[in-house]
C-alpha cells in the first residue's frame, strides 16, 4: 500500500516534539498536518477531509485533552485511525477510543509509522 494515501494529523502542544514527529512521519511518506491543541485539530479535521490518521498527545491546554479529542474524532470521523501518546506509563483501556492504540513517551517516529501502517492493514484485510 502506498503510504502517500495516508494523511496524518499530529496534535501535540510541545512544539519541539510536534516538529520532530511531524518531520519523521513526513520522511516515512505520510502527509502531515499539525495542531497544537484539540480545538485547532477539530478545525483542521473539518477543513481537510483527507485526514485519515490521528496522533494525539493526552495532556494539552484548551477545551479538551487528547482523550476527549480522540473520543470526539472516533465519533465524528469513525474511519480515522487513532494513536494516543502520553508521558503517563499506561492508561485505562476504556479511555482509549475503539481500535485506538497507546504509545508511552518517549516514542520512536518509526514505531508510530509502523503502527499506523499496521492499523491500516488490519482494516483492509478481510475478517
Amino acid at each position, binding site marked *: 500500500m502506498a503510504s502517500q494515501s495516508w494523511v496524518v494529523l499530529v496534535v501535540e502542544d510541545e512544539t*519541539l*516534539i510536534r516538529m*520532530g514527529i511531524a*518531520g519523521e512521519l513526513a520522511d516515512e511518506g505520510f502527509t502531515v498536518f499539525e495542531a497544537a491543541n484539540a480545538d485547532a485539530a477539530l478545525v483542521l479535521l473539518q477543513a481537510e477531509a483527507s485526514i485519515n490518521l490521528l496522533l494525539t498527545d493526552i495532556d494539552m491546554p484548551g477545551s479538551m485533552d487528547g482523550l476527549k479529542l480522540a473520543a470526539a474524532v472516533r465519533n465524528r470521523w469513525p474511519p480515522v485511525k487513532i494513536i494516543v501518546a502520553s*508521558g*503517563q*506509563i499506561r492508561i485505562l483501556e476504556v479511555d482509549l477510543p475503539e481500535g485506538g492504540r497507546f504509545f508511552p*513517551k*518517549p516514542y520512536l517516529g518509526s*514505531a508510530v509509522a509502523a503502527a499506523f501502517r499496521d492499523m491500516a492493514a488490519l482494516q483492509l484485510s478481510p475478517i
Partner: protein
Amino acid sequence: MAALSLPPEIANGLALAIVASSSAPMLLLDGHLKLLAASASFCDAFQIAPASVPGQQLASLGSGEWDLPQVASLLRATVSGDAAIEAYEIDYVRDDGPVRRLVLNAQKLDFADGTKLYVLLSISDVTEARLIEKVKEDLVREKAVLLQELQHRVANSLQIIASVLMQSARTVQSDETRGYLRDAHHRIMSVASVQRQLAVTRQGRVELRPYFTELCASIGASMIRDRTKVTLDVDIDNSSVAAEASVSLGLIVTELVINALKHAFPNGRDGKILVRYAVEGPAWALTVSDDGAGMSPDKKTAKAGLGTSIVEALTAQLGGDLNLSSSSNGTKVVITKKVATAAREPELRAV
C-alpha cells in the same frame, strides 16, 4: 465461659466495680436497659456526673446527646438475643464540642442462673484515629500523584530531547554526523526505557528481561532495515537489579547492539545478534554476540570511538571484566562480574 460460682450480691458488686474501674469507656445496663454503672473513663470522656448514672435510661444521660433511637433499638435487640452490636459507628454530637466518631460494641452477659440480664456497652472514640488515617491516606495519595506527575514530566522531557536529536539527524548533511546523532538518540531512548521500567515497578529495582526486551525492540525498530535478514534476540534470566546498575547495563547493551548492527553485517549480509544475561554461580554475565563478519584487524587497533569508551567506562563502574573475542565467525563481548557477597547483582562502585 466457665466461671466461679459467687454469691449474687458479691457477683453484682464485683461486676459494678469492674465496670467502674475500666480504663475503656463502658456502661453496664440491665435487661430493661436501665443504667447500672458507668466507668470513670466514660464519665470523664463524655462529661457525665458519675452519680447521675445509676437508674437512668441511656437516652436521658447528659443533655440528650445519648438519645439515639437506632442505638436503643439495637440494645433492645441485644437484650432479646436477636442481634448484637458489633462495631456500630455513630456520630456523637454535643452542642458545646466538635462531632466525634464513636464505635459501640454491646454484649449480653450470660449468667449461670439466667434470671438476670445484663448488657455491657463499650464505647471507643475513634475520632483521632480516623483523622490520622485520613491524613495518612491523603499523604499517600498525594505522593502517588506527585510521583506520577514527575514521571510524566521526565518522559515528556526525554521525548523533547529525543525529538531534537532526531530532527538534527534528519537535517544534517554529513552521514557521519547523522550516525552520531542517531547513536545519541538511541542512548536517550535507552535511559527512557529504564525510566519506564522503574515507574512500572516502583520498587527501585528493574527486572532485566522486560527492560532489555523493550530496549532491543526499540533499537531494532529504528536500525534494522530488513528484519528477514538481521534478527535481534534476547535471552535474559529472571534477574532484577538496582536502578543505577540497570542504567549502566542498558547503556552497555545499547552500545554493543548498535555496534553489531553497524559493523557485523556489511554488504547486506544476513545475521543474528543475541543479548544474554544470566547469573551463573557467584557471578553474572552479560553477553552480546553476533554471527557476523568479525572485526577487521585495523578496527581492533583503531582509536576507540565513543561507544567503546562508554562500554569500558560503565563496565569499570560496575566493577566488571570485559572480554572481547572476534573472528570470521562473529564477534562476542562478555562482561562478567564476580559477586562475593550475598547480593548477587551489579552494584555501583563508589566513585
